[in-house]
């Protein structure tokens, strides 16, 4: 009888709390959004199921070694890659091997849009400080505005490991919701005639330029912001594997098998880290609110800077301000949003390739910003 009672006390039903049920519901919503609405399924399915894994209730710290926060458990080992910032650089390696920088190389001035959109990071940093978060926590929250999941996890793992769960979930949720968050801001800040601006077609880029870019880009950006070395090093290395033309096998592995494996491990362990007892706090709710604001500010920053650049450009070289919104990174979703909004006003104006330039510049910009914040604040830890 005692054995049965003990078994019943160990079941999920006996240990369930409203928090667990809330988190399981959130996990189910993620899976629904991914499968039914096709919002970032490659991320939301692993994260959503990870949330389910992390929120099956059990009695903690009795030597079962099953919870993600229990030393020695399988999930704890997988979570190590998140906690020590191992997964994000590997994801960046794959992103580098996938990314074609031609659009950026043919019109390099669009790189500035990727810098302008990083205003979201710093605005959120200030907002988080005002709310009473510590400096390292505020910086980790601010990086959500970079709209780059791996960068957000990387910085959070260094500056505020206790907030990795909410920061990662907020970053990936809003990245999935880019098609919902960005369009109203883009329309609000642009006129119809601005949205109809046709940009000059991109020039063709030579093979040598494509090879030189990852080398020059890596050396310049990391000399300025060495904190971004793991991320930018892997990003540009991955790109060199792709563009060199002699390492096809390595490039293929980086952009297919490797990034898939790491995405699965990262998604599941980040999802599982949202254990209700640790995740459901007022801080998490504030992080979600700040995250939404940071995306909005970043989008507005990119669009407004594109309009500002137009003041100095000749009539033939005008920039369609919509592409400024793609500066928030979130590759390639924000570029797709730009294309969709642009086509609504002019069905023959294809902005996708133009938008890819600030989009990939945003990835570099957010990694540089993460490096700067890290170098500013690491001494406080």
């Amino acid at each position, binding site marked *: 009888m005692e054995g*049965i*009672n003990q078994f019943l*006390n160990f079941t999920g*039903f*006996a*240990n*369930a*709390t*409203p*928090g*667990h049920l809330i988190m399981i519901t959130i996990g189910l919503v993620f899976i629904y959004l991914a499968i039914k609405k096709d919002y970032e399924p490659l991320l939301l399915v692993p994260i959503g199921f990870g949330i389910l894994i992390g929120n099956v*209730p059990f009695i903690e710290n009795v030597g079962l070694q099953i919870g993600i926060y229990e030393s020695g458990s399988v999930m704890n080992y997988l979570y190590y890659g998140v906690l020590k910032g191992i997964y994000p650089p590997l994801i960046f390696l794959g992103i580098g091997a996938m990314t074609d920088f031609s659009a950026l190389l043919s019109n*390099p*001035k669009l*790189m*500035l849009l*990727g*810098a302008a959109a*990083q205003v979201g*990071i*710093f*605005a959120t*940093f*200030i907002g988080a*400080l005002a*709310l*009473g*978060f*510590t*400096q390292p926590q*505020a910086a980790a929250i601010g990086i959500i505005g970079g709209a780059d999941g791996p960068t957000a996890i990387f910085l959070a793992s260094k500056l505020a490991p206790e907030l990795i769960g909410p920061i990662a979930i907020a970053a990936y949720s809003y990245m999935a919701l880019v098609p919902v968050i960005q369009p109203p801001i883009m329309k609000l800040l642009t006129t119809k005639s601005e949205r109809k601006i046709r940009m*000059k*077609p991109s*020039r*063709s880029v*030579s093979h*040598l*330029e494509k090879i030189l*870019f990852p080398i*020059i*880009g890596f050396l*310049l*950006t990391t000399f*300025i*912001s060495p904190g971004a070395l793991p991320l930018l090093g892997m990003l540009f290395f991955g790109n060199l594997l792709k563009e060199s033309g002699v390492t096809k096998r390595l490039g293929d592995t980086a952009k297919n098998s490797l990034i898939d494996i790491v995405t699965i491990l990262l998604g599941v362990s980040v999802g599982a880290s949202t254990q*209700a*007892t640790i995740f*459901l706090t*007022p*801080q998490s709710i504030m992080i979600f609110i700040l995250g939404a604001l940071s995306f909005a500010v970043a989008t507005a920053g990119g669009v407004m800077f594109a309009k500002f650049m137009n003041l100095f450009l000749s009539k033939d070289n005008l920039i369609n301000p919509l592409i400024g919104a793609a500066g928030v990174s979130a590759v390639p979703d924000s570029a797709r949003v730009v294309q969709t909004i642009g086509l609504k006003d002019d069905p023959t104006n*294809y902005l996708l*390739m133009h938008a890819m330039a600030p989009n990939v*510049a945003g990835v*570099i*910009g957010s990694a540089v*910003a993460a490096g*700067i*914040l890290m170098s*500013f*604040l690491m001494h406080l830890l």
Partner: protein
Amino acid sequence: MIDTLQIADSIKTAIDTAATAINSPDNFDELTFSLDNIVKGNGILITVIGYVVVFTALLVLYLAIAQVSKILISRTRKKLEASGLAGQMQKENLDISGEVNAAISMALHLYFEEAHDFENTILTIKKVQRPYSPWSSKIYGIRQLQRK
């Protein structure tokens, strides 16, 4: 008989514990909005310096890439001039429109996929071997699958 009261008690205790953790006033106390926090945390200084450095990094990269492109284009121009093909470097040859790019890509795709009008006349019959194994034997199969 299972002690249902004990189970109900443990569920109630667990719910109360979680609710207390979620609504802990200590957590709320930690988050107090104040503009002084920005000043104390050097928020403005870090923001200004950080944003300027991000801009500088990408501006330097822009200038470097723009210069490299110019150097490479002028080098190619010189090479072509030396070989008497300077006309190849006209502006209209450099800026290829999206439509032309799409047509070239389509042609290459069809070529590499061999989806062309003239089929290859060399046909090869591949020998497919299915060696017998009791693991794949239909005789020992649980279900007899219908053959199409």
